[in-house]
């Protein structure tokens, strides 16, 4: 679905190349700002040996389970998944008897790097709170690659993640999808060709921050939920107009319109090139956003913190969007008051796309456990979902929401070898990620301190990593 959405936009191809060069058709394509990426990915897979993991319980990530299964990794890709695979010559063979193998976990809601550790004042780069519409900011410009949180997430089996700006604003800015590799710059982490994303927010946060969060009565707009919706609509109307001007120009009519960073992002979302990720707790608000998206012709890729998704799981399934959820967070504010432990399995059971997300530098370290809690609570409520199916909440569904599911998120030949070897059933509290491969390269080994990254900030400190 996401893929179609992207390809139909045409310009998505440009994005996949990272940046668009001149193409000699009279108009330079780098004048097309909606998709232009002046900060392209410089990520390249690290060297990997051909590797055969055998005798494992393999969850392929798309609903299949193979007992006594094998996964073959060659050239950074998965080349085979099955039972009787032969190692290619020179391949490293790992006997994973008693262990489980899954696709790497993808967290589609993280603020690592933007709200890094240590959480000192100078590191509060996660939210451009200066106005209710800051679609012009890109969170990648806030990401500090030296955040030790990336390494702890890696130890929890996170191979890709989306960094989002915070939720103060109606439009918080662009998110970015990263490969979870230590790097000197964010460009060295950017998932090559991943679509850009746009963070939006419903509910309490925007109206609190702008309406009555600043000590004066009344503050600015929005002051209420109806103010929120008016704010979205006003911005989308402006963006539609901007998009029309650029479309005309691209059709050869008129002067080149002036660039506007804010509207570039919004127009990209209307165009389908930029995927909309929307913080929205309450069921009734999500229902309004579904209609709002139809009014302006864009699609919500995923609702985030969708604490009440279970109340409208049927509507979410019909529309075809995902819900990114916690297993059991609830009650810390009014819009989280109706959180229940069975939210994720109830959404899944309705045929909607369910995702386990973290929004936390602690939670991201064990999203498998969060899935397990939800899975078992669902089971007790009579929703019996096989583990292999539930694993979609952790890899394939978040990959879909980020438009990268054709390339990662499951163990299928041709896909990136983003793979985790677990010490035991990862739905157990006692299981640990033992080896984490990203594009076939072993980036973390729990049993080998030499293959455990330590960020610059940690060097020379009393800790130097998690377990020194």
């Amino acid at each position, binding site marked *: 679905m996401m893929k179609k959405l992207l390809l139909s936009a045409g310009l998505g191809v440009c994005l996949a190349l990272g940046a668009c060069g001149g193409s000699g058709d009279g108009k330079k394509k780098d004048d097309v700002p909606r998709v232009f990426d002046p900060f392209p990915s410089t990520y390249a897979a690290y060297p990997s040996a051909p590797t055969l993991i055998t005798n494992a319980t393999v969850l392929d990530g798309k609903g299949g389970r193979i007992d006594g299964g094998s996964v073959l990794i060659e050239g950074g890709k998965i080349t085979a998944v099955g039972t009787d695979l032969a190692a290619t010559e020179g391949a490293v063979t790992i006997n994973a008897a008693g262990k489980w193998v899954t696709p790497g976990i993808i967290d589609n809601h993280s603020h690592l790097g933007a709200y890094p550790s240590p*959480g000192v004042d100078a590191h509060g780069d996660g939210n451009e709170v200066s106005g209710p519409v800051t679609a012009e900011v890109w969170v990648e410009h806030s990401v500090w690659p030296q955040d*030790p949180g990336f390494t702890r997430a890696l130890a929890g089996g996170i191979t890709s993640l989306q960094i989002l700006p915070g939720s103060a604003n109606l439009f918080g800015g662009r998110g970015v999808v990263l490969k979870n590799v230590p790097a000197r710059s964010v460009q060295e982490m950017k998932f090559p060709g991943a679509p850009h994303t746009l963070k939006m927010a419903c509910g309490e946060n925007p109206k609190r921050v702008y309406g009555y969060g600043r000590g004066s009565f009344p503050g600015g707009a929005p002051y209420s939920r109806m103010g929120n919706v008016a704010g979205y609509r006003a911005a989308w109307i402006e963006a539609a107009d901007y998009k029309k001007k650029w479309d005309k120009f691209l059709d050869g009519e008129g002067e080149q319109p002036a660039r506007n960073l804010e509207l570039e992002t919004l127009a990209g979302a209307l165009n389908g090139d930029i995927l909309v990720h929307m913080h929205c707790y309450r069921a009734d608000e999500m229902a309004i956003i579904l209609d709002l998206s139809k009014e302006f012709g864009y699609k919500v890729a995923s609702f985030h913190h969708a604490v009440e998704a279970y109340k409208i799981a049927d509507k979410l399934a019909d529309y075809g969007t995902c819900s990114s959820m916690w297993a*059991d967070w609830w009650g810390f*504010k009014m819009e989280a008051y109706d959180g*229940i432990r069975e939210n994720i399995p109830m959404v899944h059971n309705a045929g909607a796309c369910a995702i386990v997300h973290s929004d936390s530098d602690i939670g991201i370290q064990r999203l498998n456990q969060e899935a397990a809690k939800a899975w*078992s609570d669902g089971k*007790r409520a009579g929703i019996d979902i096989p583990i292999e199916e539930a694993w979609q909440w952790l890899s394939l569904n978040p990959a879909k929401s980020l438009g990268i599911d054709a390339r990662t998120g499951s163990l299928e030949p041709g896909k990136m070898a983003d793979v985790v070897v677990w010490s035991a059933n990862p739905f157990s509290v006692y299981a640990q990620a033992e080896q984490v491969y990203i594009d076939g390269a072993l980036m973390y080994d729990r049993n080998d301190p030499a293959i455990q990254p330590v960020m610059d900030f940690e060097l020379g*400190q*009393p800790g130097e990593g998690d377990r020194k």
Partner: protein
Amino acid sequence: MIRSLILGLVALCLAPVAAAEPVAILGEKVWTGTAQGTLTNGVVVIDNGKIVSVGTGAAPAGMPQVKAEWVTPGLISAFSRTGITEVPGEKSANDTGAGGSPFSAALSAADGFNPDATPIAVTRLEGFTRIAVAPDARAKLFAGQGFLADTSGQPGSVFKDRAFAFIVLGERGASLSGGSRPAAWAALRGAFDDVRFFTARYMTHNDGNVLTRMDAQAFMPAVKGEQLILIEARRTSDLEAIMDFKQENPMLKIAIVGADEGWRVADRLAAMKIPVIMDAFSNLPASFSQLAATSENAARLARAGVPVAIVNLDDASHQARLAAQIAGNAVANGLPFDTAMKALTTVPAEIFGMSGLGVLAPGARADVVAWDGDPLEITSAPVAVFIDGVSEPMESRQTKLRDRYLSLDHTDRPLAYKH
């Protein structure tokens, strides 16, 4: 419906149990928390609010039975804010702290306790039968008085008011004291002097260095060593300073909350018999006071002989229940299972002097939880919870919401008619 499903699953042959009637609770494994260890096919008999016997063999005839995979003592949350805020983000529904109050050490969290608060049942459903509840420090480093309660949700569930004083040092204490650690220590020492010279300073006027008359009075038992003091601190140097202070004031009864870098001073903590109430999830240099945080902190502290209680410091009001998951993770990072169980039962009971709680032993209070699996495992849940021998309802506002929306069919009537 859900309830009947659970009953079916675990073969819970429970005749309607009136308050504190005799029940035999059978577990494939019974973790006692005593020298009896973990019994296989154990039987715990309770009557009249007390545990009568803990052993193996046949259950007494003619007694209602609960059968489950695991049986444990009721879990104890050693540090929570459960029941003193319904919605932390709403000022009107949050009694955890009072930044605008002229008082500090005298603030008694029990005055804000509401047994009807929805997090109480939510916490009970996960096997926690007792909670230590601490106020939050908002105006000064002296947060006030904490209390002990059960999770029955009944009036009178506070069983020990003013059970401990809570104070905050380290970065938070510094900021609450004007901006530095020296300011925090000046305030703490000044407060001790206020109490010690109470008569001279307050008899004729309110003239303490740090505390108001009422605060000084409330802080008095702590200073005299008659009341437990919980002290929040994380950094190694803060922990050393607290231990130095304790050495200067040996009568003090203290326990540390946090101790993210505690493993670096584990031997000294053990030698001084100072227990630690910690969150084993803390493994990030999240501040300059946590640079040595490690997921092995619990294991290393315990190995040195420090009594360790495990809690969730991240969301202590609504998610105190996650302490069992956190303890399970500590096991995965080297803490022995038995020690992890004690971190949720016997150690909190010892820290707070809760006699007859945290263990399954004849004569102990009948706080018993029957589980459908290993209590530290994330996929396990309680099937029955007893507090003082009373079989507690396994229902919360959350389970009612779940049951309402399990089917979204509203062709005949809106879902609001399902209740």
